[in-house]
């Protein structure tokens, strides 16, 4: 690992100021992605500002049934908060299906949203990669891309976003709160994650030294009946090939309200709005679910190695919706 300096922040503004005054400054939270990527020379900070002592680790109930999740709350802690388990099971499940127990104890919620892609060409610090070295090309386009994205891709980048919990948060219209040299911002989570387009190096709208302080999840009674379904190559401790965050309310046999988002198949946590629109007012049946899933995947741009994801994603969507509506169709 390259030499670096270190500072432990005791207040939010001090942390921001410390990172802001150096171009090569970066925040250090759980470190589960960052320390790894620094060691591999993918990230090259000259200063790490340790924010783990900042008072940003609470999970609080909001009026109206929502949640305010402090950016430094750990994945393992958030997963077992009673209000999360009861009102937002999809969040708890997504957290517990990610990483390992040790990593969940370390990794913060804010860091989870900022985690970098698992594309091996990004991480090898050698191959052409427009994310790591803008303009150098994308080795994944003609390389081993079985795990790569089929939605939201560009000819500059096809890496999938690796987070599980972000998929649940996108389905629930969470809001990302940030603070930086320019003040405070509240960013709808679907706008927080950027498509690669021509600038895959830009993954979120935050500026240098801007820090996530909290994630707010608005109250959503529909989420009481929600599920996170994840398919992967191994039974545990593996990133998703396909995942689905789903919540649904059935009234008189038809879909009255639905939230759907996909992981493992897109360049950002993917809100399946086409499928949602297709489902509203339709019978809660496997046929409706399959039709909606097909409409969502109509825009897929598969490659020979990951073409299987088109079918797998549709089946996963049908499975998730069927699981939630079993007995009501």
């Amino acid at each position: 690992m390259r030499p670096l300096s270190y500072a432990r922040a005791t207040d939010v503004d001090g942390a921001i100021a410390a990172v802001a005054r150096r171009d090569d400054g970066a925040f250090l939270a759980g470190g589960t992605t960052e320390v790894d990527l620094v060691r591999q020379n993918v990230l090259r900070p000259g200063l790490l500002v340790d924010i783990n002592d900042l008072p940003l680790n609470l999970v609080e109930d909001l009026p109206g049934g929502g949640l305010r999740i402090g950016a430094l709350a750990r994945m393992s802690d958030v997963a077992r908060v009673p209000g999360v388990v009861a009102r937002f099971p999809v969040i708890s499940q997504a957290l517990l299906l990610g990483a390992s127990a040790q990593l969940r104890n370390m990794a913060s919620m804010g860091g989870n949203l900022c985690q970098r892609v698992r594309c091996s060409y990004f991480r090898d610090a050698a191959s052409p990669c427009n994310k790591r070295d803008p303009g150098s090309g994308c080795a994944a386009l003609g390389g081993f891309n079985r795990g790569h994205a089929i939605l939201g891709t560009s000819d500059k980048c096809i890496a999938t976003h690796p987070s599980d919990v972000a998929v649940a948060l996108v389905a629930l219209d969470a809001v990302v709160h940030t603070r930086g040299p320019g003040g405070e911002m509240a960013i709808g989570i679907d706008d927080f994650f950027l498509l690669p387009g021509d600038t895959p190096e830009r993954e979120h709208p935050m500026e240098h030294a801007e820090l996530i302080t909290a994630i707010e999840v608005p109250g959503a009674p529909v989420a009481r009946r929600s599920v996170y379904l994840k398919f992967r190559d191994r039974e545990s401790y593996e990133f998703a090939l396909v995942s689905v965050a789903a919540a649904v309310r059935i009234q008189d046999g038809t879909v009255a309200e639905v939230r759907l988002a996909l992981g493992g198949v897109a360049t950002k946590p993917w809100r399946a709005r086409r499928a949602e629109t297709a489902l509203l007012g339709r019978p809660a049946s496997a046929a409706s679910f399959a039709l909606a899933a097909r409409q969502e995947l109509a825009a897929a741009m598969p490659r020979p190695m990951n073409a299987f994801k088109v079918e797998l994603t549709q089946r996963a969507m049908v499975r998730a919706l069927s699981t939630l509506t079993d007995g009501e169709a």
Partner: protein
Amino acid sequence: MNTEIISPPVERGPETGTVALIVNGQARELRIEPRVSLLDALREHLGLPGSKKGCDQGTCGACTVWVDGRRVLACLTLAVTCEDREVTTIEGLSAGGELHPMQAAFITHDAFQCGYCTPGQIMSAVALLDEGVTDDRQIAEWMSGNICRCAAYPNIRAAIRDVRDAAGGE
């Protein structure tokens, strides 16, 4: 924000400096750079080679230790971030020369072949019971962050079940 009253924290490094740690209940001082991982600090600077370096990238779990009582990966933790926190390694698990019940159960159940992953397995196994994980299927899931190349998994789980049952669990 008002920049006049903000005082950024003091920068340390990149040169070697003094880092004060509490490891297995003992205050220890070492001279290291900020980039040194907790794992390297333990093994190379503090004479505690029980925590193992398998992958050094947060994948295998061989370096599992506890920081403030929570199991974490020492390879992805910078040692300097552990100042003012309590670090516990496999060397600190037993007291007074007596094996911890989990260590004894691993021997009873032959829960290893080469033994390289064993310290991490045991640090995870003890933590897992503290976390309230009890049923057999949960044990497998919650131990998935500790890889055993020799595939001693059935015996590792048997050892954990024994300790769980002896403690009055399910």
